[in-house]
């Protein structure tokens, strides 16, 4: 029963997305295109000449899969904060939905499923851009798509839990300033984490993004050992599941008065 009810939430989101898909697809295509062209090729040319790439790998090949994971993190972060608060607090649309046979558990499941679908889409388009640049050219590289999706989910569920507790967007913007943007920049997408000072390396590896970047990069470059991959997947799954488990009672407390 929960599966069917959750599916309604996915349908609802899809119906809204029908109006937005063109703009969304355009952004999902041109963002990686511009980043990979400017930083991958433009900046990358300098990096390659200066230090022979990153550990022998041309900069664009290093950058692209890392950026893929970072962009899905950003997508998840945005979707699970402001729009979610809007549904809870400003439009009260969740109140209307919960007046039907839908339960909070179904609502949560449905929103998570929808976010996952959105990120699959974003990641797939990114992969296509990577293929256009010649970065992704093996069947194994396709695994970067689910890897990036899982990375996004590992941020999505904790952020859903967080947003459920918020009455306004003040702390939300702080989260973007203090967590999301720094992770985007220093989380391993643009340069190896090993270049960070020791303490910060530990901090970076504690976050899901570092693992998502490593996983995604490993699949695209084809240099990931199975054991390492398993560790990365477990960390990402761990964040996702713990986030969902915490989100359920928090969301229920917020919506059921």
């Amino acid at each position, binding site marked *: 029963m929960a599966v*069917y*009810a959750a599916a*309604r939430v996915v*349908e*609802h989101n899809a*119906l*809204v997305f029908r*109006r937005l898909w063109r703009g969304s697809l355009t952004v999902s295509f041109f963002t990686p295109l511009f980043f990979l062209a400017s930083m991958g090729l433009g900046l990358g040319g300098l990096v390659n000449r200066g230090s022979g790439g990153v550990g022998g790998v041309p900069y664009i090949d290093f950058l692209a899969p890392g950026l893929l994971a970072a962009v899905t993190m950003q997508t998840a972060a945005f979707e699970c904060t402001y729009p979610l608060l809007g549904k809870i607090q400003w*439009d*009260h*649309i969740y*109140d*209307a*939905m*919960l*007046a*039907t*046979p*839908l*339960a909070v558990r179904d609502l949560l499941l449905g929103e998570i499923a929808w976010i996952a679908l959105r990120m699959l889409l974003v990641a797939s388009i990114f992969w296509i851009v990577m293929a256009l640049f010649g970065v992704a050219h093996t069947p194994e590289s396709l695994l970067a798509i689910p890897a990036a999706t899982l990375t996004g989910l590992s941020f999505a569920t904790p952020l859903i839990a967080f947003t459920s507790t918020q009455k306004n967007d003040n702390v939300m913007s702080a989260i973007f300033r203090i967590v999301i943007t720094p992770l985007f920049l220093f989380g391993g997408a643009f340069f190896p984490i090993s270049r960070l000072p020791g303490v910060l390396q530990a901090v970076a590896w504690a976050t899901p993004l570092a693992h998502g970047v490593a996983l995604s990069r490993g699949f695209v470059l084809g240099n990931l050992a199975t054991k390492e991959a398993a560790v990365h997947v477990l960390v990402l799954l761990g964040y996702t599941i713990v986030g969902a488990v915490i989100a359920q009672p928090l969301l229920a407390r917020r919506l*059921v*008065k």
Partner: protein
Amino acid sequence: MTTQDPDFAPLISARSLCKRFGELIAVDGIDFDVARGEAFGFLGPNGAGKTSAMRMIASVSPITSGTLRIFGKDPARHGVEIRARLGVVPQADTLDLELTVRENLIIFARYFDLPWAVGRKRADELLEFVQLTERSKDKVDDLSGGMKRRLTIARALINEPDLLLLDEPTTGLDPQARHLVWDRLYRLKQRGTTLVLTTHYMDEAEQLCDRLVVMDKGKIVAEGTPRELIEHSTRPRRSWNFVSSATSHRISIIGWTGWSSERRCCPIEFCCTRPTEMRLWPRCTDSGSGPKAPSCAAARSRTCSSG
């Protein structure tokens, strides 16, 4: 509860129903029954507990204590089944602003597991019923308040509910919109839908309801038919002529124990069916014993702000 012919068992039954939010007691032990097919009203000022009572009936707000049965079922255990047969028109329009008028109805049908084709068909029928067919492709944001309310009512009917709950259905609407809503609700009643509504307008209660309870501060302070309530509480009755600065308005003061107008700007508790901006100089025309009036000799001026 005794076993009876299910057709005669009350659709909603509450005993000692309570709702508490921390220290605040919103609903303080109320008893009521709603029979199938009747139009039942909760009347009272803001803060009386009407909305809290409605949310408990809608099975979206857990009860604090007491018993509540809807369709004979306990909302704590059978909330999903109860909600499947309800229609809810909340006080605030909770429409999806990202979707069009028609899409709002169609997607809502899905939450009741209706097939897409059925949802589309019912959506068109309901848009006809609330006279919004010409606006079906518009974004909800472009609608007026009265249209949004009509859409919310249409949405509440998408699952052909046995019971329709309306929280202050015409608050904030202009008179024309109000009458359209009343007319539609009356038609629903004629078709056999049970209506439960809250209101703080006596004229709405009179128009729509077969029976009313009056709530104040979480308790039921009076119940009966609209006629009964008016007649009962106007014994004794006293009327004053109020001279406003523009024209003369006669307003009947109903000495109603336990119910006060929200804007307690006048010295006596009363209900205005049409609260408007005016100055009052009470001049007694004594027509019987009743609640103590302010001194008739003194010309006293009070300003009632419009409700």
